[in-house]
């Protein structure tokens, strides 16, 4: 035991030494002469792939074109976004609601594109929030967050969102063991082993609408679930999760969670779990979680708080979960396109173990166990192992596949990507990254059908790589051509920070998915829509004032409003009358306490404003819309509280007559 600990420390020390020494001295050398041509996308031409990249601590998702590396959009998901008004407008606020109220930020780590028959289908992309456990679904017809579901009994929603091959389920495993919401959580922290549990959530996804529903949770020992992937093909019906901290330490984890030589990959037979649920073996537990959905016709989010969840105690059922020993704090857990091989990456290991699904099924059949872990059978390592990739590099993290029998693994400590043969486990090629690479992505690289042309590495550290921008530097991605025998670096591009996992798909799949160009104003069922200037009005209800406003190139209606008083609660419900592709208008008002609104053609959006000072307040369009954009503006007169200035509004005519006085 002691010896192993020393070894682990050695690996870490060695690792940190390599950390700096391994970065490519002149990475320009790694770029071949025609790299620029191969990533050049001429003006007006389109990229070949969409790359959806997690935004890390920004809470958002960014969208890049490949091979150019051009950023196309940032889609707000878990954090307020002043640019679009996400989380600021009245309609979007419910999307960031939780069981503990409005939460305006999160940490977004992983993304997963929906699949049909194990292939990327371009309909939705799922995103996790680590900090306040949540899963979101982004609709790729609109590039808009359509749904967010909070996860009870979870803390540190890291091993998510990963999906089954027909998007039957999105799963989410908790990183932190904690007592469940339905248990007494007021316990000494040092009772971890006794009181802390891990819950894994299975979220059902509706085939047609994509609507999510927290179907059930598995109650498991309090270990840290790190990453996951679903089985596919022959292993469809199974899910695989890496677990570390099988020591169940609760302090100084960098030492205390590295005691054991092996932690686990947990295999979950989710079809079996479904059977137990059907047979009534689950237990309804009290909890609270928010389920937020976006309605495309009312342009409004709705938040519903649910108060129970179905929990299945997997420790009591002996044939749902099995543990496969996996060396040294496993991180990545990746299943090859055939569904046969499961690659575990012990982040402190100097080899990569590859497990065989067939061998696992065989070992389960023979009850080839070395014991159990809190009631869950532990299979014998050698009985489930396909083999180990020897001396691949230091700090293996994540693996993706090219569909041609090759695997590509990132190495955080030695800063490289290593290509190896899945069957023979021979290392075939290696390239440096710049540097401390985390995840990697091959378009479709975790599906049954990878598009094995490019590989993108997402790097944690970019010291000296770009023009310096102070103590904090940009994060980065690097694009490699993997179409030949040897990987070739083509391009670096900066990313919003910090990119974790990413997904990519052929551009045509996304852009030909029936993309929305405008919101059809005829179908706009927003309760406070103004369909045309004739419907614009200002209505006072006590101290609440509702302004039904429209916008079009190049004016607002109304553009003069009087009779607003200090202390009023003013709601601007603004409808963009345009029905033309790419003509949003913005709305911003002097001393707005929230953000601007950016309103898409045919959409209605609401800004709340509480005037605090007497005077004239201008408002204007923030998105350059036409030659007369600067003219797109208006005035509001704010009178003292209790003033008797009558409420009036106008466009093109000075009203009331008294306002000239």
């Amino acid at each position, binding site marked *: 035991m002691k010896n192993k600990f020393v070894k682990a420390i050695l690996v870490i020390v060695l690792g940190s030494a390599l950390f700096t020494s391994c970065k490519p001295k002149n990475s320009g050398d790694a770029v071949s002469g025609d790299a620029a041509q191969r990533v050049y996308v001429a003006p007006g031409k389109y990229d070949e792939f969409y790359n959806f990249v997690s935004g890390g601590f920004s809470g958002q998702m960014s969208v890049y074109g490949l091979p150019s590396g051009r950023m196309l959009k940032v889609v707000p998901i878990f954090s307020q976004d002043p640019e679009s008004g996400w989380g600021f407008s009245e309609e979007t606020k419910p999307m960031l609601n939780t069981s503990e109220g409005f939460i305006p930020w999160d940490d977004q780590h992983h993304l997963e594109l929906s699949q049909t028959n194990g292939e990327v289908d371009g309909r939705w992309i799922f995103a996790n929030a680590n900090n306040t456990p949540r899963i979101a679904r982004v609709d790729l017809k609109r590039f808009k967050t359509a749904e967010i579901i909070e996860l009870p009994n979870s803390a540190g929603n890291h091993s998510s969102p990963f999906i089954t091959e027909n998007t039957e389920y999105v799963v989410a495993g908790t990183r932190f063991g904690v007592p469940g919401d339905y248990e007494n959580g007021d316990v000494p922290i040092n009772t971890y082993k006794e009181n802390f549990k891990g819950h894994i959530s299975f979220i059902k996804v509706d085939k047609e609408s994509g609507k999510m529903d927290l179907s059930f949770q598995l109650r498991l020992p309090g270990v840290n679930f790190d990453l996951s992937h679903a089985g596919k093909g022959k292993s469809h019906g199974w899910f695989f999760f890496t677990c570390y901290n099988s020591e169940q330490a609760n302090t100084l984890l960098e030492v205390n969670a590295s005691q054991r030589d092996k932690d686990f990959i947990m295999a979950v037979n989710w079809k079996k779990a479904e059977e137990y649920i059907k047979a009534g073996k689950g237990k309804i537990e009290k909890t609270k979680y928010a389920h937020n959905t976006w309605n495309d016709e009312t342009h409004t989010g709705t938040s519903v708080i649910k108060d129970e969840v179905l929990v299945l105690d997997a420790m009591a059922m002996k044939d749902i979960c099995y543990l496969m020993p996996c060396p040294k704090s496993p991180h990545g857990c990746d299943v090859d396109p055939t569904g046969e091989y499961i690659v575990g990456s012990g982040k402190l290991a100097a080899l990569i173990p590859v497990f065989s699904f067939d061998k696992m099924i065989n070992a389960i059949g023979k009850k080839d166990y070395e014991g159990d872990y809190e009631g869950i059978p532990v299979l014998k390592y050698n009985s489930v192992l396909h083999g180990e990739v020897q001396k691949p590099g230091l700090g293996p993290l994540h693996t993706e596949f090219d569909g041609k029998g090759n695997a590509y693994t990132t190495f955080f400590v030695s800063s490289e990507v290593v290509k190896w043969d899945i069957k023979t486990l021979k290392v075939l090629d290696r390239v440096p990254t710049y540097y401390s690479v985390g995840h990697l992505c091959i378009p479709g690289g975790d599906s049954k059908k990878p598009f094995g042309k490019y590989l993108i590495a997402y790097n944690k550290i970019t010291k000296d790589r770009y023009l310096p921008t102070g103590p904090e530097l940009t994060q980065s991605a690097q694009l490699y051509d993997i179409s030949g025998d040897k990987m070739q670096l083509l391009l670096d591009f900066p990313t919003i920070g910090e990119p974790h996992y990413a997904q990519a798909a052929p551009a045509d799949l996304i852009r030909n998915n029936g*993309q929305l*160009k405008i919101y059809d104003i005829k179908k706009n069922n927003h309760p406070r829509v103004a369909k045309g200037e004739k419907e614009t009005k200002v209505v006072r209800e006590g101290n609440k004032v509702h302004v039904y406003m429209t916008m079009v*190139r*190049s004016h607002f*209606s109304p553009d003069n409003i009087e009779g607003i008083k200090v202390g009023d609660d003013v709601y601007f419900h603004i409808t963009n009358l*345009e*029905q033309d*592709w790419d003509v949003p208008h913005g709305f911003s008002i002097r001393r707005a306490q929230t953000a601007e609104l950016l309103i898409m053609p045919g959409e209605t959006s609401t800004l709340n404003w509480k005037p605090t000072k007497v005077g004239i307040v201008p408002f204007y369009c923030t998105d350059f819309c036409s030659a*007369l954009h600067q003219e797109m503006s208006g005035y509001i007169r704010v009178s003292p509280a209790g003033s008797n200035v009558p409420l009036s509004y106008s466009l093109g005519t000075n009203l009331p007559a008294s306002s000239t006085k």
Partner: protein
Amino acid sequence: MNKSILLVLSLALAIACGKKEASAEDNYQPGGGEATTEAAADPASYDPKRGEGKYDTVELGATLDQAMATKGEEVAGVKCTSCHKMTDEKLVGPGWKGVTERRTPQWIMNFITNPDPMIDKDPEVQAQLEICLVRMPNQGVSDDEARGILEYMRKNDGVK
């Protein structure tokens, strides 16, 4: 003086046209709509009486179709009258008074449903753009809606 006005005008036009130019080049029509990529067509082939679009002729009734005009008025209220007055006064775009006397029915139908190519080619529309400085947006008007708007314009011009 004259020169500086011209400069401002052309600058304004450049801005107004900016967004359009990016998409005019496109080899991709999202949403599966009919491709309208006649950008490179010979300007000499443009018929200023007909305009450009799917309408060659439009049959008008001898008298007004009241129901159609009412429908057209509703649509115009949502999609048109923010920019067009019913008088001859210019708002964002020209006033509608007399438009059915100035333009052929097919020209009006083509312009409502297919504005962008016509703004690029029609000499009178280009002259109008120098005054208004805002390109008429494509408001996603359907054929039925456009016909209703035309009838509403006729009503506005005194057809009984």
